[in-house]
């Protein structure tokens, strides 16, 4: 069975800089994959591999089972792409651009293109170079959606845009997926957007994948945990508790005084007697608070509180930890 996108052990270096380091990724049909990461994390490099604009130095990339470098016509015909750059030819009018692009896609939906132009209030006679950034993105979105692509690739389409255009972009993506069950690869800095539309999340930093999993599982799997340990123990064993795959210390209090910058919960500050630690933990399975408290107790820890973590917090803590 061929997936819309299948990446295996993909590596890319630019001189001494590692842009992608053994990236493995599979997107199933109908999924919306949110790709998040800091600037220079490797998101665009990954997307350029998907489009066949970069050749894998090692590893492999398959789009619908085909290598996009060896079969660019076959793969690009099934991909709709919106770039973060203003790269549409400025001298063309929108109507010319639509007609030009239509020639490359046999499945071009003229009605959809017209509807989207009308919905986005695009003037077909306007030249691309006179478009605002928002109009430019909307035009690019029309060009990407009208061929009804099997895979829609959006590379930070909404950075620097006002909320109205961002809403347009998101609605178009949602409609594209909801009505047609197409696959979307959505790269963005705006985590709330990613959380809203994606059902699968990939977090990348310095070319390494930090998180890869269904959005619900990722958000559910990460928790803020406040625990206490005796002053004479170093507290390093908490992360080794069963069912926990990751434990990042965000801050601790000792004798009631905060010792590091990350925010600690009120309860943690209030009850500090020995050492209270706030950490971000990832659990492999759903968290059973009582079982965890018992396990912690057996290890010499006192579990104080488990709080949900937002995607923002997960992102900030993991990327800061990585750096």
């Amino acid at each position, binding site marked *: 069975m061929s997936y819309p996108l299948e990446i295996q052990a993909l590596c890319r270096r630019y001189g001494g800089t590692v842009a992608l380091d053994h990236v493995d990724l599979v997107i199933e049909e109908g999924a919306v994959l949110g790709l998040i990461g800091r600037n220079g994390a490797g998101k665009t490099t990954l997307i350029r591999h998907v489009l*066949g604009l970069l050749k894998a130095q090692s590893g492999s990339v398959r789009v619908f089972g085909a290598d996009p*470098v060896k079969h*660019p016509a076959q793969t*690009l015909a099934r991909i709709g792409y919106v770039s973060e750059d203003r*790269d549409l030819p400025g*001298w063309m009018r929108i*109507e010319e651009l639509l007609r030009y692009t239509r020639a490359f*896609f046999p499945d071009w939906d003229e009605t959809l293109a017209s509807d989207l132009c009308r919905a986005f209030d695009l003037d077909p006679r*306007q030249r691309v170079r006179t478009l605002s950034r928002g109009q430019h993105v909307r035009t690019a979105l029309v060009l990407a959606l009208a061929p009804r692509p099997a895979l829609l690739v959006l590379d930070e389409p909404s950075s620097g845009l006002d909320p109205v255009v961002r809403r347009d972009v998101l609605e178009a993506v949602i409609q594209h997926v909801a009505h047609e069950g197409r696959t979307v690869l959505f790269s963005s800095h705006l985590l709330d957007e990613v959380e809203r539309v994606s059902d699968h999340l990939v977090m990348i930093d310095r070319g390494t994948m930090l998180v890869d999993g269904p959005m619900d599982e990722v958000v559910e799997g990460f928790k803020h945990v406040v625990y206490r340990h005796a002053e004479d123990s170093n507290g390093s064993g908490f992360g080794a508790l069963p069912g926990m795959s990751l434990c990042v210390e965000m801050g601790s209090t000792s004798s009631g005084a905060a010792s590091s910058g990350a925010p600690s919960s009120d309860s943690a500050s209030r009850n500090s007697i020995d050492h209270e630690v706030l950490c971000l933990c990832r659990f492999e399975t759903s968290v059973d608070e009582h079982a965890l408290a018992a396990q912690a107790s057996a290890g010499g820890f006192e579990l104080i509180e488990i709080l949900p973590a937002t995607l923002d917090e997960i992102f900030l803590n993991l990327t800061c930890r990585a750096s």
Partner: protein
Amino acid sequence: MNSFGAARALGWEYYRMSRRSVPMVTLAGCSLAGLYWIALEPFGARRESLVFSAVFGTLLIVHGMTLLNCRSEGLALGFERRLYRLPMSTPGLVIWRMVPAALLGAAMYLATAGFMKLVLGTRWPVLGPTAISITCLVWMLALNWSLGRRPYLLAPVGLAVAVPFVLWLKPRFQPGAGELMANWGDFGAMDLVLLALAVLMAVMVAIVGVRADRAEPRTLQSLVARNRVGGRRAPISETMPRRKSRSRAGFRSATGAQLWMEWREKGVWVSLWAALGLIFCALAGGFPEFLAGPTLRNGLLFIAMLLVLAPPAAGFLHGRSNLSSRDSMLDRVRATRPLSDRTLAMTLLLATFVTTAAAWLVAILTLTGVFVVTWLWGDTAKVEEIVEGLRLALQHSAPADLALAGLLMIGFCVAASGLPLSLVLSGRSRLTEGLAAPYVLVILGLIFERITGSDAWRRLLPYPAVMMLTMIPVASGVCAWLCYRRGHYSLRALIRGGLAFVTLAILLVFRFPFLQQAFVPGGLPFERAVAYAAPATLSAAFLPFVLAPLMLAWNRHR
């Protein structure tokens, strides 16, 4: 931003934009002038006519490059709009953009003149052409910047500006005036004052035009675009009568669409450049003097030069996605077209041929116009003599010979445009800069010949031709094998191509017996180089078809 700091910043930016192209353009100017002087003089062209052609040919190259540097977007007309964001007055922007351009243009011309004087020992006019160069350049920039939004006014306004200039220039090119340097030697203070006034006018025109452009809303349409239709704000598309667009009917194929894009974006400019160059050349000489006797022949030489220059110019333009950046990586729009590497490369190759054909058509139409005007108002006997010569030549040529001559011409077009295109398509600037190598060889040869006084260079000339004849089929074979390995061509297609090449080569050798002299052992006289050049051209014509897909893939999938 203080004025001096701004001037320095803009000057530095201009230098950064042109630091790589300036040496190449200067080299091209020098080689053009040198070629005119050394290669064409033995064919009977008059010294003063040669100076005239070389001076204006050089200026044309210099001006073309300067305009390319001062463009607003791609090859679009108008002032660079990104500069409007700078906290500078409009006169400041205009002047500090014009000054480095004019200085650079003048410097490149001076370099050419210096080369002619120091290396070839030729008396070469300096002051007059330099002053004229600056004047032409600032006027071209002023018209470009002022009429960027109304390009249809460019031709009539340009003509209105050119006519008084030509009337002033014309007496300097009176036929039979003897040594042309004498004319340029008359270039005095009054001429300088006149040209300075013309420069001042150009600056004023540019300031007014750029100021209007800077203050104007984004488009004229936007002033009237938002009309109310049925109580709602309607886009202009609903309120204005629809103008028929050529592409409205849609394209028959993806390659047709890409071809249209290439033509609209680049091809049309090459033809326009050719037309403007020819009109400028004709106007500068002035009718009908320009068309009389030896000057007519010189004009024909200029057109011949255009025929030679148009294919590489077209190849270079179509090969580069981004004309402003040094990195000629394939742009995102082209790179993400759902076309295979071979199809995309072949479409670009086809666009290059179309552009070359259009430029040639412009040249041929102009040539026909020159003949007609000369016949009506100039040297009628000369035109009738040329036409009769042509008629006799056609009468005595067998259709097969004509067909093969046509084939060679097409071969030249394909090779001269396709090889630069293929190299530029690689997106590697070092390889592109290697295009200057033939020019460097020519210049070195000229210098060597001038210093030693021997004709060794001319005797050496056949050897590169022999090398080319040997190397090109080998390179074609290697590229064909790589194309097959990478799936750009099937084995069947390659065998067909190879068979066509062998058939044509055999046909050429047997049809033109003089070609067989090339294979006779012994020395390699100059004339025999021609014998080598013909099959070399033919084999070079096959190379782009296998080289371009490889280079494009190298650039597209990095």
